[in-house]
């Protein structure tokens, strides 16, 4: 975890409301593990003080990148920044995905929308190649398919409006794959990042089919480093549950530890 002022190398629109931002961060880049995030202060933001958290998408040499969707004032201000402008980032943060051991489980990645961003490093660094199940509302919400394919992964896309890939929810092809007795995959393990309802559905599938699963939880954050207790989610503890911090104990949790009854 370092706090650094970094320079923007590029900041370009990818599709629709999605942008890719690359920053030069030589001290941070080598430390990054799959599933970790950066907490970004967007200086031009007027009278809005807090940092914004973004999964780290790719790492290349002394740079790292994020893939973000403009949804509010912070991401919109970010999208107007130019190469050469500076940002303050605290990174890498959080407890990321467990990268599969050589010869161990085959990873099945499940991503919704910008959840894809958290997955790339995992796919890249996993010794086993698997399948990426990616879902979104419309065609434009399906991100970087080609990039996963060029890593040698199979991509199965679903859209709610059927404008790309299969029509439906991302969990449908996932279920088919898991239920498929003919499947080539012997020991699957799920890794998911996306909206909470999707994570919950993945958690249920994992439980029902007794498949291990790691979920990257999306909670509002404030400090990003564990001091403010904003980002808590209910985690089982004995017969009861306790609040744990998404920014510190997470964002990645073991699906079987999440006490869904307490999740909003």
């Amino acid at each position, binding site marked *: 975890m370092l706090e650094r002022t970094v320079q923007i190398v590029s900041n370009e629109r990818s599709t629709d409301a999605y942008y890719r931002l690359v920053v030069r961060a030589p001290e941070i880049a080598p430390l990054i593990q799959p599933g970790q995030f950066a907490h970004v202060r967007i200086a031009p933001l007027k009278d809005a003080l807090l940092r914004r958290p973004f999964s780290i998408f790719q790492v290349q040499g002394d740079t790292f990148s994020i893939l973000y969707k403009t949804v509010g004032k912070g991401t919109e201000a970010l999208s107007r920044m130019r190469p050469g402008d500076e940002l303050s980032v605290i990174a890498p943060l959080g407890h990321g995905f467990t990268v599969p051991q050589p010869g161990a489980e085959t990873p099945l990645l499940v991503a919704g929308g910008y959840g894809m961003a958290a997955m790339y490093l995992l796919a890249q660094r996993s010794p086993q190649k698997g399948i990426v199940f990616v879902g979104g509302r419309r065609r434009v919400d399906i991100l970087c398919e080609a990039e996963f394919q060029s890593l040698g992964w199979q991509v199965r896309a679903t859209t709610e409006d059927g404008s790309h890939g299969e029509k439906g929810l991302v969990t449908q092809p996932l279920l088919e794959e898991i239920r498929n007795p003919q499947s080539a995959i012997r020991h699957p393990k799920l890794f998911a990042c996306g909206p909470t309802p999707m994570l919950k559905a993945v958690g249920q599938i994992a439980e029902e089919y007794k498949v291990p699963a790691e979920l990257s939880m999306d909670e509002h954050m404030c400090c990003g480093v*564990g*001091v403010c207790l904003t980002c808590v989610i209910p985690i089982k503890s004995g017969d009861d549950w306790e609040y744990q911090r998404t920014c*510190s104990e997470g964002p990645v949790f073991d699906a079987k530890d999440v006490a869904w009854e307490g999740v909003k």
Partner: protein
Amino acid sequence: MNLSVQIGRLVMQNPVTVASGTFGYGVEYAQLLDLNQLGAVTVKGIRLNPVRGNPTPRTAEVTSGMLNAIGLQGPGVDGFIQKYWPFLKSLPVPTIINIWGTTVEEYAEVARRFHALGGVGALELNVSCPNIKEGGAQFGTDCKLLAQVVSACRKATTLPIITKLSPNVVSIAPYAKAAEDAGSDALAVTNSYPAMAIDIETRRPKLANVSGGLTGPCIKPIAIKLVWEAFKAVKIPIIGMGGIQTAADAIEFLMAGATAVAVGTANFYEPQTALQVIAGLREFMQRKGLNEVREITGSFQPGK
């Protein structure tokens, strides 16, 4: 140049600490800044038993500030001593422990426990949290209850006691005086301000707890006035806080009567703030030819 100040018997190498609840238990920030440069580390509020806290969402961003209703989640006295005290004890800078309870007796019991622990810098009595049903602000908006809490803790410990007052009163002077008379060594002014925000698309509150406490730069002018009013009312030192972002903000609090200051919300977006404040304070003293930081305290000149 002497930056050291005294809060009761507690000596701080400089007048800058952090506000309870905005700095965890210190250890979380150890990688990002040199804790040993602070005047003191102030930890998140602790009661006797572990506390789960409020449901989420617990914070919301508002104009030049934020709302929070954490609900004082915490590990309780034992959990704190086990998980966090070894680290804090090992630091050369003192720890101020923020404590609370739902009864006068619980405050006293927590004070006794920390007294017995040994090595604690000071106890800060949170009688002003707006986000819990029992305890907190209930004690801070009733002069008699406030005096009872302070007296009970005074009997329980010889540690320096800092009473953290509520801003949500018509006039802070009687509360400041009540705390002083009951034996408090110092005051902390101020806690967060009761406030609320609504998401107009869903018509739902932005906090699960409906209302919460407003903090950050937006409350600074209110906090400055409270410090000044408290300063005029008592002789004991005051730790000023509320929206401090820069050395200039901290100096404004010192001039209004604070002996020390705490950086709160700013830690969340700029963890280096407290260190920047210390550096800026040094520069200011140099520029103005001041040798003692204490000379700044209360140096505000309201008259002609």
